[in-house]
């Protein structure tokens, strides 16, 4: 079968507890761009039990079609039945591109399914575009250059390197995509997607595991990945108590407090608030880096922020290399004054 | 002649370095400041076999060689000289004489728990009136039926109160030679903590290695079984001297580690610290001093490793041990003093480790034979 038979940009619409994850909409946003370049459509693949009702929301965020596999076996995520379902969708509908979120689910489902359908998978992508492979044609072998390929860009080596990867000879071209990086489209109320119900047989085999227990973390309702403004503190803040300064600033700016790894290690904030390679990738409109030196692992998680402001007493701190505005000085003096000044300005 | 380490020793060094950096270094300053024996660290070292490195496997040890053991003391002492001496005194001064002179029964009974770190060892020779001059010792042991009865006291004993097993040197007879000069004959004993009549005196407050448990041991009609005698009766002095030959290699390794640790910090600091607009490492004065220190430290390392190899292959290694200890100890003192100088004011402040290292270095010129004793041993061999 020829590769050209594979058509359309598909995304895995992750749902947990019958609630769509933000990554589903982010993937649709990116898929839409890719589909425009390819002149094709965006299809969301929704797997679960009693999830059909979620299809409309996917439509409102830009999906053209939604394939729903509704089966009681899919109530809670487990690798095997989900892999069977997604594999069946791929084999039946033959997508050209299949995007999956690089979540704790997607990074399990993605590799299993890609191996099952014998194609490549590029992990944790931060950039996706349509282009040529090789990027430049080899002189004399111009006709071997392939067009309309998915070019998948990802950081590796702890953020030290960037690689762009293609999957020229296998279909679908699969990628997992890091949450928080792609932009979702504005919700278009009432926009409808074509809903296709698909019921492949799911076979209970030796690879099924038994769920003994599901334990949800308590608290932690807010997610720093959703914040428009992040006021992030590092080791330089000095103490748990001193984070009050950052909280005050965050409150004035309508944002949230986040932090670097050192802060979590010191026990000043919980890991949910950690930005960086081992924490979360954030992309707020404004990112304050306060008392953060700017190790590459931290920068990897925040450099896509629209506007970065760094406050640090060490004028050689690497954070200033990525900051749009850098203030060299004592955060204990600057931050309260800044909070007060912003309050005054906004009160005007 | 090949001065490169083989794979085993390279891996062992990596292990000791990693352990020292992760488990020991973070506690070094506090250990010094509070003068607390680092019991948790010792437990961890026990778990990983660090307390029985050169001990054969059949006696519960790691089955490694003296060089591996020396590298362990060296790497520990780079970050904390207190931790280094705990291992050194335990291994060289307690396990080693039992392995060398003990009966099979004694080896089975004592070496295995010591090597596994279930028990800690110490060595008691020095007395208030007898340091370098061992003949000044007063502690006596008298056989009374099936028991030896010990009376006297020992001072400056490393692992003093925390040990479980002690090698104690005591007078068991006094003989007169033909010219009527009295000679004390010593014997070595294995004394267990809790023996009736065995107690502890004051804890010493020291200049350096402040976390090590240095105590006076007191024996008041202390009764120990007859078979606690280690080696032949009357051979306590040569046993003690031979034990100290081994101990000196351990202390040489400790001194070497202190010097290396100070030099490492100095290199990092001089690269960072700016004066007159440039890093002090950019000044020739600094560069020359670093070069001198590096050459000297490496020379010390070669002597220490050579002594360790000698212990592995030779019956007698007194001179190798004396040279290693003399040179490494004086290197430690010289290097730490120079490093404090290069650090300037910060070198004199406790927050920076080099101040502690300079205090720690001094003891290596004193214990287990002063530098003067080492010179006597070396020159004695030259002139005999």
């Amino acid at each position, binding site marked *: 079968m020829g590769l050209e038979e594979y058509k359309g940009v598909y995304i895995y619409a992750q749902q947990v507890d019958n609630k769509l994850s933000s990554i589903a909409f982010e993937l649709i946003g990116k898929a839409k761009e890719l589909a425009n370049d390819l002149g094709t459509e965006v299809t969301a693949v929704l797997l679960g039990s009693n999830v059909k009702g979620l299809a409309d929301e996917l439509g409102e965020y830009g999906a053209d079609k939604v394939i729903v596999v509704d089966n009681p076996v899919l109530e809670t995520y487990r690798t095997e039945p989900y892999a069977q379902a997604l594999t069946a969708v791929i084999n039946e509908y033959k997508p050209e591109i299949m995007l999956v979120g690089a979540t704790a*689910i997607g990074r399990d489902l993605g590799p299993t399914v*890609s191996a099952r359908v014998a194609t490549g998978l590029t992990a944790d992508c931060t950039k996706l575009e349509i282009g040529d492979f090789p990027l430049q044609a080899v002189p004399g072998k111009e006709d071997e250059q392939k067009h309309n390929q998915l070019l998948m860009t990802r950081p590796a080596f*702890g953020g030290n390197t960037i690689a762009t990867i293609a999957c020229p000879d296998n279909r679908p071209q699969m990628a997992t995509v890091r949450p928080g990086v792609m932009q979702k489209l504005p919700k278009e109320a009432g926009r409808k997607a074509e809903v296709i119900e698909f019921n492949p047989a799911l076979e209970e085999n030796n690879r099924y595991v038994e769920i003994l227990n599901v334990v949800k973390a308590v608290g932690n309702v807010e997610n720093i990945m959703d914040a428009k403004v992040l006021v992030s503190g590092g080791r330089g803040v000095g103490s748990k108590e001193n984070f009050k300064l950052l909280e005050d600033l965050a409150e004035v700016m309508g944002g949230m407090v986040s932090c670097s790894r050192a802060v979590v290690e010191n026990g000043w904030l919980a890991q949910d608030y950690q930005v960086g390679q081992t924490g979360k990738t954030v992309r707020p409109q404004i990112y304050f880096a306060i008392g953060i030196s700017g190790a590459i692992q931290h920068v990897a998680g925040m450099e896509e922020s629209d506007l970065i402001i760094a406050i640090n007493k060490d004028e050689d701190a690497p954070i200033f290399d990525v900051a749009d*505005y*850098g203030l*060299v000085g004592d955060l204990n003096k*600057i931050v309260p*004054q800044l909070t007060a000044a912003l309050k005054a300005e906004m009160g005007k | 002649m090949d001065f490169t380490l083989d794979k085993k020793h390279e891996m062992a060094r990596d292990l000791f370095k990693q352990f020292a950096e992760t488990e020991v270094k973070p506690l070094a300053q506090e250990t010094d400041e509070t003068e607390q024996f680092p019991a948790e660290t010792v437990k961890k070292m026990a778990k*990983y076999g660090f307390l029985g490195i050169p001990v054969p496997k059949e006696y519960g040890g790691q089955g490694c060689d003296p060089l591996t053991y020396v590298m362990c003391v060296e790497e520990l002492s780079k970050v904390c000289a207190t931790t280094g001496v705990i291992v050194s005194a335990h291994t060289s001064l307690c396990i080693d004489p039992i392995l060398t002179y003990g009966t099979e029964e004694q080896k089975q009974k004592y070496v295995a728990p010591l090597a596994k770190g279930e028990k800690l060892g110490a060595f008691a020779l020095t007395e208030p009136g007898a340091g370098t001059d061992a003949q000044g010792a007063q502690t006596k042991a008298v056989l009374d039926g099936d028991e030896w009865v010990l009376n006297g006291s020992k001072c400056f004993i490393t692992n003093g109160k925390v040990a479980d097993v002690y090698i104690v040197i005591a007078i068991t007879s006094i003989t007169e030679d033909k010219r009527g000069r009295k000679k004390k004959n010593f014997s070595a004993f294995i004394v267990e903590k809790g023996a009736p009549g065995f107690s502890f005196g004051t804890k010493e407050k020291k200049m350096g290695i402040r976390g090590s448990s240095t105590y006076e041991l007191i024996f008041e009609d202390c009764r120990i079984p007859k078979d606690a005698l280690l080696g032949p009766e009357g051979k306590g002095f040569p046993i003690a001297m031979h034990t100290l030959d081994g101990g000196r290699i351990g202390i040489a390794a400790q001194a070497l580690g202190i010097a290396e640790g100070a030099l490492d910090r100095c290199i990092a600091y001089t690269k960072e610290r700016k004066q007159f607009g440039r890093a002090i490492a950019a000044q020739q004065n600094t560069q020359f001093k670093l070069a001198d220190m590096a050459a000297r430290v490496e020379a010390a390392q070669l002597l220490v490793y050579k002594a360790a190899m000698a212990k592995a292959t030779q019956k007698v290694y007194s001179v190798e041990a004396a040279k290693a200890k003399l040179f490494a100890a004086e290197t430690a003192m010289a290097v730490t003093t120079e490093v404090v100088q290069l650090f300037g004011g910060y070198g004199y402040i406790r927050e920076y480790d080099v101040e502690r290292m300079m205090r720690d270095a001094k003891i290596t010129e004193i214990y287990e034979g002063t530098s003067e004793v080492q010179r006597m041993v070396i020159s004695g061999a030259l002139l005999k």
Partner: protein
Amino acid sequence: MNIVVCIKQVPDTKGGVKFNPDGTLDRAAMLAIMNPDDKAGLEAALRIKDETGAKVTVLTMGLPKADAVLREAMAMGADDAVLVTDRVLGGADTWATSTTIAGALRNLDYDLIITGRQAIDGDTAQVGPQIAEHLGLPVISYAEEIKVEGDSVVVKRQYEDRYHELKAKMPCLITALSELNEPRYMTPGGIFEACDKEVTVWGRADLKDVDDSNLGLKGSPTKIAKASDKVPKGAGEKVNLDPTESVNYLIGKFKEKHII
């Protein structure tokens, strides 16, 4: 019980990163360590060994110098080691890597296979689940706790906001998180023994039931189009003023940008 732990020698990413002209990584030029997630997986296996007397075999695919991580694993307590190394296996992506490792594993007896969740060089988290796929085994990834219960394993499987307690019948494959445990150190005696032991070395010919078309660079569906060191985002403006002036400067910028 037989446990095989798949480990990888990785460059310590704290150091610099280097590439060959063809865009693949020049691993030879970098300091090498045992991948942290794999080390946690090994520790989990060694704890099971401590409790049950299981036999632990470590397996790696890599250059001949990857022997070092196998020795390290044995010095920590692993019983046996297998090095899969062959020129034709070089440049493999996760598909070709998992195909290769599965081919090697088919020669071994195993009840439990443990891999790290992901390696710090590639960060893909794909090889573990893909090995399970090739071998037809149940897989539980992201394990933060592993217990053996009879012929099954019970695993705490981490998700972003929850964990699942899962039970799988052996044989199965688990991918371990470095949060799983604090790996033990080697012991000096363990090092001496490990250096004297034989490491089994397998090449292409020793892989069972694998096709050449699925191995190495050629057998990798994903191809590197471009790889480069990361170019940092350009620095913006930096001011070193007294606090009040700093704040005024920033407020000015915010007004320019219509943030306030």
